[in-house]
């Protein structure tokens, strides 16, 4: 065991997979010699060389298109899109190319690749460098979508994503890069499509993703200490495939559901989870499912404004208390 940062976990994860499989290659803007805009890939160029770790022009379509062509013909590329907001300029690959090639070709075409990208707010970068856009990808048949909240999950889920035969969009959270946690030594490989119950509880289920996970955990702790409310906290981790069994099982036990989402409200991932629970576990519920989200606004840059719009532990505490009537 060693304590490492979420940032260093990214490097370790990619290195683990590149060392294992010579077909794994890595490309993106400033990822090689500079070590990445967020310094999450420092040392990979030195370790694996410029043939496998390559800097590209600022050409997001070329990056994702090249990753796809390489994946179709036998490599396992990892492509970086520096900020997840930039997915908008290469969305054709995410929406039309990666996820539809296999289907349209009646199973002939494969596309085993990973797009890793820095998602989320907290850096005061404003509305075009701070969004949580996991819901943009969740809605597309053929993609898999992952968003880890801890260093060990970064490694395990990255390994699973690289080894997966389908295209995986891997959302790293900018505001988690500095967070640290204990990580076991040796190879770590996790499983896509598995949620994790991080804290067991009986009074309500709080489902969260990425940066919202530590906030949900903090809220759960305060709810227990200050208000005697015992929350179960689930880290969804993987939006597609979605581990509905873990969520439905938890709701069957606690009878209340809260989602904590950083994406703006309309069509956020929590809406799908609420819909599934309403459809399939309505009579398990003792009250309405409640979504705690960023409001339906572009993100403001200033710290005091950005801090207000994202779900905070306090807002989670207040919402849960009010909803449970305690």
């Amino acid at each position, binding site marked *: 065991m060693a304590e490492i940062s979420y940032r260093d976990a990214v490097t370790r994860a990619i290195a683990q997979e590149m060392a294992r499989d010579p077909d794994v*290659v890595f490309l993106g803007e400033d990822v090689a010699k500079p070590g990445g805009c967020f310094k999450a890939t420092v040392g990979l160029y030195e370790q694996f060389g410029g*043939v*496998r770790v*390559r800097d*590209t*022009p600022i*050409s*997001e*379509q*070329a*990056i*994702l*298109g*090249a*990753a*796809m*062509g*390489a*994946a*179709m*013909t*036998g*490599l396992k*590329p990892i492509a970086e899109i520096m900020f997840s907001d930039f997915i908008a300029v290469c969305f*054709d*690959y995410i929406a*039309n*190319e990666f996820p539809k*090639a*296999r*289907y*349209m*070709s*009646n*199973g*002939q*075409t*494969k596309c*085993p690749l990973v797009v890793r990208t820095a998602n989320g707010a907290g850096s005061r970068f404003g509305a075009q460098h701070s969004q949580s856009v996991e819901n943009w990808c969740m809605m597309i*048949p*053929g993609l*898999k979508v992952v968003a880890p909240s801890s260093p060990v999950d970064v490694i395990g889920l990255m390994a699973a994503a690289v080894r*997966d*035969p*389908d295209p995986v969009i891997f959302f790293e959270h900018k505001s988690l890069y500095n967070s640290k946690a204990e990580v076991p030594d040796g190879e770590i490989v996790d499983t896509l*499509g598995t949620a994790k119950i991080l804290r067991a509880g009986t009074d309500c289920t709080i489902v969260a993703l990425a940066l919202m996970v530590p906030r949900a955990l903090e809220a759960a702790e305060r709810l227990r200490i200050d208000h005697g409310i015992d929350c179960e906290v689930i880290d969804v981790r993987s939006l*597609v*495939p*979605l*581990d*509905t*069994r873990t969520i439905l099982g938890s709701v069957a036990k606690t009878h209340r559901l809260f989602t904590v989402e950083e994406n703006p409200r309309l069509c956020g991932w929590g809406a799908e989870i609420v819909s*599934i629970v309403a459809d399939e576990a309505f009579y398990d519920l003792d009250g309405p499912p409640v979504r705690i989200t960023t409001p339906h606004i572009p993100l403001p840059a200033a710290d005091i404004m950005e801090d207000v719009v994202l779900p905070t532990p306090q807002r989670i505490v207040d919402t849960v208390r009010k909803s449970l009537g305690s």
Partner: protein
Amino acid sequence: MSTTYDLTLGPVGSGLNDDIGEEKRLALFRSQVRLRDSEQRAFDLFLQNLVKGTSHLSLGQEAIAAGFAEAMQKGDLSFCTYRGHAHTLARGVPVEKVLGELMQRDNGLMRGKGGSMHLTSEEHGVMGSYAIIGAHLPIACGAAWRAQYRGDKDVAVCFFGDGTTNIGAFHEAVNFAAVWKLPVVFVCENNLYMEYTPIKDVIPIPQPAADRASAYGLERILIDGNDADVVYRTAQLAFGKARAGEGPSLIECLTYRHSGHSRADPAKYRPEGELEKWKEHDPINLYRERLRQFGVKDEVIAEIEASVRKEVDDATEACKAAPSPPLDIITTDVYADGGWAWRN
């Protein structure tokens, strides 16, 4: 290595001018006739409402598909657009498979799951037909990157229309390929019209691809895309360069489509007499004359034309008799496990 390109000869002084030989010339002719007859048949089947959806024909553009495909080796990869029937057929995909897909039958290349605009046959090196303008140029770069990375000797060949040269992905891909020296050959089929608007109305230069090549450090290559010999020679040179690790080529082929952009387009925007003028430079008539000039007997030519007609006729009948695809494949192959499950 620098080569001079002549519009009507292709690469000048390459020593290839007399290299094509009768066997290859007959193959080039057969391929062009096969593309022409298949596309004409697709058009006829529309009129009978047996081809559904949309369709973008390459009538008049056969020399490009035939010339490049005949210069390719097994293992070389074709990346096509929604106007991809000809390029798919030219790699040897059976006519029945293509017509079956257009007619949305179970014998179609993708059993009706892709349709006219997405013909794919990886076993023939046809790595897909892409219906989002420009999307496949970066993808071809990726296939070429794999070849470079592994030391494979195949070439990625990417076909697109003149309109594509104004989209961002074109510029991203050509720059990327040039900087990484990728074994990819970009082939612009300039048929003078994007969809309905003449390409010359939307570019500040005379030639949409050739006049952009210098921006990426590439040679200016503009050739007669209706002369299969010129196309074939140019392709050979570009493939040789790619295989030798000397990087990409951007080739602009002048041609003309005899039909509208798609099924819905009667092409009324064309000035009077333009089509007729281009039909005087029809690739198949031109090549038939070429064969005669090289002493090929009329019986040989007639035999090729008859055997192609039979293949297309047989394919048509097979497709008419084929069933629709079964509905249980609607949910197959969304994910690599063969299914569509997104949750447990």
